[in-house]
């Protein structure tokens, strides 16, 4: 079974193509594709950008309004995939199994985000794919100026808009 690919069209910056690992991260892949096909990611922001760390999106519309999401999915961080640079992983709250729609792309080898133990502290973040084209677009997102906005930190001063996400 070949791995599904998704294009993220970023306004004014270009296209990031993700290859999802349906084999090692089946639930996360299925969950992500469901949001893609529903159009959930269309016109969302990369709302949290930290150079040397990661760029995060999939949850907010321009204006920083949070979009409604579906049920949380199980954490698949114990699948052996590591948070290497340019991998994509599910974002979540402190509850290990709280991931819904938000995701982030690592812009460094973030080993400290890997699964170490099935505990609250050690669960880590589930990598479910990687960037196969558009590293330069990811880099451009990571380089934008950021600041505080409505109680959120590291928000791009000029909206970084994911205009549409398409399964190809």
């Amino acid at each position, binding site marked *: 079974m070949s791995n599904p690919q998704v294009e993220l069209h970023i306004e004014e910056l270009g296209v990031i193509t993700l290859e999802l690992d349906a084999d090692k991260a089946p639930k996360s892949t299925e969950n992500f594709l469901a949001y893609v096909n529903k159009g959930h990611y269309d016109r969302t922001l990369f709302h949290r950008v930290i*150079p*040397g760390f990661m760029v995060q999106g999939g949850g907010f519309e321009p204006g920083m309004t949070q979009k409604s999401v579906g049920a949380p999915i199980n954490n698949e961080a114990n699948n052996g995939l590591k948070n290497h640079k340019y991998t994509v992983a599910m974002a979540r709250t402190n509850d290990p199994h709280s991931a819904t729609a938000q995701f982030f792309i690592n812009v*460094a080898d*973030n*080993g400290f985000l890997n699964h170490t133990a099935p505990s609250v502290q050690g669960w880590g973040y589930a990598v479910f794919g990687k960037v196969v084209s558009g590293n330069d677009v990811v880099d451009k997102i990571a380089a934008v100026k*950021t*600041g*505080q906005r409505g109680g959120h930190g*590291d928000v791009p001063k000029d909206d970084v808009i994911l205009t549409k996400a398409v399964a190809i």
Partner: protein
Amino acid sequence: MDVVSDLHLQAGLGHVEVWVNYLNTTTADALFILGDLFEVWVGDDAYPRNVSPQNFEVQCLEQLSAISFRLPIFVMHGNRDFLLGSAAAALGGFSLLTDPCVLSFGGQRWLLTHGDALCTGDTAYQAFRHRVRNSAWQIEFLAQPASVRRQAAQEMRKQSQEQQAKNKVDSSKTDLDVNNGLAMEWLQAFKADMMIHGHTHRPADHQLSAGHVRMVLSDWDVNIQNTAASPRAQVLRLSAAASSAPSSPGTVRVNRINLLTSSATP
């Protein structure tokens, strides 16, 4: 009690495992971290805890916090993380110490300091230090957005590295190590017996005069070859031997514990 410094923790620098392992297994009843816990720290607000994925630094503070239930942790500013504030201390479960300060232990007075203030031969650094330890400068710096501060810190680091390269080839540069004369003055001013500091990454004991030793801590860069002469990830452990009468000084045993075997790390 254990004394360490110069962890220089930063995502991707690879010595976290040794440190976390040490935190989980130490039998000390107190831990003193004399500066440069972090490679860089641009202000407490740049590392929020209520976001996910968390910054690496937040994870480090939470690791410390978990240990702090077991043993009290004391942290001093270094030349890299002098902006560590009360929010970081609260998250990390530690108390911030002023630099320098005196610890009474085992009947002796120990002067604890990061060490950078004593390297008077490094005039370029001392000028920089004078500028950034100024509260007006810090207030202005912290008012800028976190992203701007991160850029500035990177720029400062680059300039520091360039200056260090220049120092190496400048024959007029006097010794860049801690000035022993000044160290002795500090000991006398604080009526202290021993000094413990880090910063120079040159672990050794220096006899300043009778009864006065300057003990230098190692750094924790496990990517630099660990040798007997220049160990990394070394913990200074002070143990007070039991003393029968409260008024007699007792003795303090000082051990340097090497966490890395000499057959180096990958």
